């Protein structure tokens, strides 16, 4: 039992003798301006100590090594430590990572330590070392912004000025982080030599150095932040101590200053009255388009220079492109910039130079070009329009004619060719009414087209009829006699005053009437025969009688005197007899 107890105690002793390697910090929470001491201690001698990378800290001092060995009451204790003095470079929770050491062939590591870095805290100081002036009060970094609410693309300047008191000295300064100007076009203005001037800060006299000048062109509207500039400055601060000669002893100190972040509100360019061709130019410009020449010969080229000059964001917009007819060959422009950037913003001129080669004879207009910009002084858009440029190409091939290589070498004769000329107006015209109706599809068209086809059957019918008529001999004779009877009757009527021709005509009329009606020849015409035939044709005897007496009468009357009354009577009688016979003869 006792043995067990001893063994137990021995084992405890073994625990006591265990190797320890740990990291100790002077404090877990510190201000940004305070220093942190970290000790890596071990109770056994180790080799190959590798410190962690102190991210977020700057090593001010260290590593310093310390070894101590002591014998107390026959028990030896060994202690070895590496110490660092650290200065945080940023606020927030920082982690010091593991350190490693090799002890007795084994690697031991410390635990990571979290350090909370707060804002700078006032530090109690040794009253003797206490400087007469606090470095906090003696140094100020100020960012001066020329305008808090500019338009988009309006130049603003940021000037960083360092104010420092007369009784401190600055030995060195480093930029901790350069400000980034996101959403700005920025141009740093180099300062060749830092010159200290007199200046006033909060009503006190200070010395002042302009550290940095930047011209900024905001590229978008809204609230934009300008990141702060932070400086780490080594200063010499006077203390209350005096040296042997009574001079004030200076103490080196380190001071961080930051200009603080600034926010500017960028106004967008007004939408009202924004020209269509606006390409973002803001400032005050002149605009010109100048051709090197306007009258060209074939094969010559011309330079068209598009120039914008003035003050404004010259590098930040593009010049308008000229529009030329397709028969002018235009090459890509040569862009040139002559822009200075003083604190007031860019000024100078930018130009695009186009080479144009005409290919054919003729005149070619180059369209007026317009250039619009936003005038900051009036707050309005302005448009400058260049006049139209007319380029005349004197000779050369015309567009229409193919180029024909003519070999005129050795001939001194001038060849007179009219070539293709722009033709003069026409001097004569025959005007016609507007909206004339189409002939095609009109009724007249159809009528005229189909009329000949319609006439064809008529012709056929007519011919058929004529043939039929020609074939009918008897009918033709009757028809002829009928016609002659009528003809002579009308002749008789005409000759009613002349006795002889009247009776001849009347006789002929009566004869032809008989020929037509009875179908007999003149040779067979005798009174008996006439009577016989007429009777057989069912004519009435009285009418026959009067007809015969009329024919006889005609013969007598020719040789006998007769009055005009008798002639009229005979004519009337003839008409009555003919019409009656016509009715009676079947």
């Amino acid at each position: 039992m006792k043995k067990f107890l001893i063994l137990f105690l021995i084992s405890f002793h073994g625990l006591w003798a265990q190797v320890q390697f740990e990291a100790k910090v002077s404090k877990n929470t510190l201000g940004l301006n305070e220093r942190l001491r970290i000790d890596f201690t071990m109770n056994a001698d180790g080799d190959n100590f590798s410190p962690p990378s102190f991210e977020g800290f700057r090593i001010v001092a260290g590593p310093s090594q310390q070894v101590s060995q002591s014998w107390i009451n026959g028990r030896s204790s060994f202690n070895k430590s590496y110490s660092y003095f650290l200065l945080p470079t940023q606020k927030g929770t920082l982690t010091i990572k593991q350190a490693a050491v090799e002890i007795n062939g084994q690697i031991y590591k410390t635990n990571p330590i979290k350090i909370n870095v707060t804002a700078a805290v006032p530090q109690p100081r040794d009253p003797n070392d206490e400087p007469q002036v606090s470095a906090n009060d003696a140094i100020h970094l100020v960012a001066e912004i020329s305008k808090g609410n500019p338009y988009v693309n309006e130049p603003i300047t940021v000037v960083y000025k360092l104010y420092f008191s007369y009784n401190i000295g600055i030995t060195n300064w480093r930029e901790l982080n350069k400000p980034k100007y996101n959403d700005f076009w920025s141009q740093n203005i180099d300062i060749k030599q830092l010159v200290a001037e007199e200046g006033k800060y909060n009503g006190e006299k200070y010395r002042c150095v302009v550290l940095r000048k930047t011209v900024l062109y905001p590229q978008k509207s809204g609230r934009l932040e300008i990141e702060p500039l932070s400086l780490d400055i080594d200063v010499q601060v006077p203390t209350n101590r005096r040296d042997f000669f009574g001079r004030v002893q200076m103490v080196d100190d380190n001071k961080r200053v930051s200009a603080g972040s600034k926010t500017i509100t960028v106004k967008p360019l007004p939408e009202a009255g924004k020209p269509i061709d606006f390409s973002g130019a803001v400032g005050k410009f002149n605009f010109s388009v100048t051709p090197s020449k306007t009258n060209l010969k074939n094969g010559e080229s011309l330079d068209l220079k598009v120039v914008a000059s003035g003050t404004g964001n010259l590098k930040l917009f593009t010049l308008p492109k000229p529009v030329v007819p397709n028969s002018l060959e235009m090459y890509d422009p040569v862009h040139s910039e002559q822009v200075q950037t003083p604190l007031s913003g860019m000024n100078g001129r930018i130009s695009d130079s186009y080479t144009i080669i005409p290919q054919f004879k003729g005149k070619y207009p180059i369209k007026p070009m317009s250039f619009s910009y936003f005038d900051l002084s009036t707050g309005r858009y302005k448009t400058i329009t260049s006049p139209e440029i007319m380029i005349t190409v004197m000779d050369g091939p015309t567009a229409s004619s193919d180029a024909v290589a003519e070999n005129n070498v050795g001939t001194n004769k001038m060849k007179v060719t009219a070539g293709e000329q722009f033709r003069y107006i026409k001097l004569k015209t025959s005007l016609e009414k507007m909206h004339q109706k189409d002939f095609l599809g009109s009724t007249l068209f159809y009528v005229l087209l189909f009329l000949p086809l319609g006439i064809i059957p008529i012709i056929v019918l007519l011919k058929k009829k004529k043939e039929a008529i020609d074939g009918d001999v008897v009918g033709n004779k009757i028809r002829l006699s009928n016609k002659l009877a009528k003809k002579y009757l009308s002749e008789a009527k005409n000759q009613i005053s002349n006795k002889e021709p009247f009776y001849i005509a009347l006789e002929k009329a009566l004869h032809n009437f008989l020929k037509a009606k009875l179908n007999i020849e003149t040779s067979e015409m005798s009174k008996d025969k006439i009577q016989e035939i007429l009777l057989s044709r069912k004519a009435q005897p009285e009418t026959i009688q009067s007809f015969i007496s009329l024919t006889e009468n005609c013969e007598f009357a020719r040789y006998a005197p007769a009055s005009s009354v008798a002639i009229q009577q005979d004519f009337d009688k003839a008409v009555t007899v003919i019409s009656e016979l016509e009715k009676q003869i079947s």
Partner: protein
Amino acid sequence: MNKLVFIFLFITQIFLAQNGFEKGNALYQKGEYEAAISAYESVLNGKQQSAEVYFNLGNCYYKLNKVAPAIYNYEKALVFHPNDSEIINNLKFAQKMTIDEIKEVPKVGFAKLLRDFTAIFHYDSWAWIAVSLSTLFLLFFVGYYFSQITLSKRIFFIGMFVLVFLILISVLAAIFEKDHDVNERPAIIFAEVAEVKGEPKASSSDVFVLHEGTKVYIKETLDNWRKVELTDGSEGWMENSALKEVK
């Protein structure tokens, strides 16, 4: 009496129109192109027109460097006299001032041959040709019908068939030509810059951009949008206000 007044009015109108043309010519001679334009326009306002009036108008606009109206008037003059060399020549001069360069895709094949043939005459001329052939057909028929000699009878008979064939050709040519005339709607772009869109919508994306003086052919119509085709075959929609139809 009333008729006399009408005839008098008609004559004076023709006289005045003729006067406007000559006045325009005189002003053109003096170089007063703007005034010449208004003189020629007065002829057109009197519902009178001719190829020469449009040609002279085109010349005036060309002298004033107005590309689109010049080309428009030359094209209009060409509607009346499609083969006038002076008009074609001056049109070429005006076309050199345009900005767009559009290739003409040559048409080939049977359709081109057919079109070349029918384009020899205006469709009204084809109609008159058909009518006169039809009359000739009648004469041939008469010749055939009444001829006594066998040979001439045969000739007339064959001639009749040939004529029927020719009548058919000329009528078809006239119909084809008229159809072509109705369907072909050339137009000139008057807007300085005109966007041609993929769809008949203002929000649609631009397919290509045309400039003034370019000739397009209208294919379809939707509200105030026109589907246009270029001579190189590309198509798109554009607003009516940017165009002016030639016919």
